């Protein structure tokens, strides 16, 4: 059975109205997790590389 083609303009309108999922990450989950963990380790190193003077202690409950 042949499928009828939609008019071009209507197809464009429908694509705009539909939630778009085409940009989903194509990389495997485990590879993404490895990348995120590596980035997290670098972030930790950045914090460890900062000298914090003695007495600079955070409040237990944060207040601005």
């Amino acid at each position, binding site marked *: 059975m042949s499928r009828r083609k939609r008019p071009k303009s209507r197809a464009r309108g429908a694509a705009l109205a539909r939630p*778009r999922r085409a*940009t989903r*990450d194509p990389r495997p*989950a485990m590879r993404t997790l490895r990348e*995120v963990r590596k980035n997290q380790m670098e972030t930790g190193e950045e914090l460890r590389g*900062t000298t914090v003077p003695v007495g600079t202690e*955070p409040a237990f409950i944060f207040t601005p």
Partner: protein
Amino acid sequence: METPLYLTISELRDGLRRKQFSAVDLARAALDRLEALGGRYNAVASVLHDRAMREARAADRRLRGARRSGPLVGIPYGAKDLLAAAGAPTTWGAPPFARQVLDYDAAVIESLRRAGAVLVAKLAMIELAGGGGYRYPSASLQGACRNPWNPAHWSGGSSSGTGAAVAAGLVPFGIGSETSGSILSPSANCGVTGLRPTYGLVSRYGAMALAWTMDKIGPMCRSAEDCGWVLEAIAGTDPRDPGAAGRGFNMRQAAPRRWSGVRVGYVPGDFDGNVHPTARAAMRAAVAAFRSLGVRWTRISLPALPIDAAARTIIRAEGSAVFRDLITGGDVWKLVDRRQAAGLRAGLEVTAVEYLSAMRVRRMLQDAFRRIFAEVDVILAPTRYAPAGRIDEPLDPQWRTRAPGTGRRGTPVGGGVALVPAGNLVGVPALSLPCGFSTTRLPLAVQLVGPPFGEALLVGLGRAYQAITDWHRRTPPIPPAPRRGR
């Protein structure tokens, strides 16, 4: 202008008092527009017909009965879908919570109901407010939220739907939330005025927690004055939020005044070399407008601290603690964005020492901001240093230094770009004000950042800027909605 929903709160209040329209008329206009246009931008999580009509009828009774009524009586609004609204879906933008229905109202929704405002919709958001660190604008149950100024571009996150709905005239104002940029970024991208209040000024009871030492709830509106009116209604103490500061806000504090002598701090290069080339002319014009108010201009610099690293570590650790059951149960992989899921999973591995190191850096940053605010009354900076990117572009850090939409390497961003995470770590308020358009015709904005509980100064100065500019009155070209029933 074809809809009253583009009017400011003061204009809507005048129209209601003069009986040009009723609260029911406004609610119907908002519901029709949300139904017709919300899907076009992926801006709406749910439309609340019954509740809206019930609250609108109550508002009309209030308007008839009282000689004087509050500024928000009868004004429709939308709330980010991380806020509980009794009986309505509260999805937090995330597939694992798509069927969640809570049986109570968040504190801000209670406050707005008491003030007579009419809740018409829950608005789309980035899933779980993006705490795991998402890679694509499509990281939402509702899909990538499109920018009304150019639907091929993003509206910004994570209060994406609130930014798009206010810009597209679906609601006169909305409520967003910010942990690190989620009110300021969509406000800037969509050309609306957004206020991030001081940490603790607005109760978070009934809001999804992401990072409870950084989460804040605030208004996204047509103008600085509107932000003030909404803040007045939602600010205040609440024993149900342990972070509540026990303070309120009164619009009388933001009354017009002379601005000569007010000290405005800026980071050299922020309105020139540090911003994207397509944004420079508009940024320079914004500086000229502020100068014309007679303010005193003072150079400042942000401290050389690992601001981004501290913010990321705190959000990651607190967010992964909040969603630990989701992560360990495996449902985290049902999130739309894989990097977001991986970020939350990896967050369980942040050590206590790393978290506390970040909190110590935060304390140093607070001290640095105290010194800055001894020298200046307010900081002025671009809200974002480039216009909104395309919705199909990944949000990888290296992309932030490239010309949006071209893939070509752009100007590396420097100067006060860390002001958004810094301001959020320190807990100080910020007001994003539309300031023109890029040469690619996308909205741009500047932010005013004040000391803790300095909202009156921000609203007052923002109102003075908007009295001499009209960027906040511009509306995007919205093609007519297709007719129903075809």
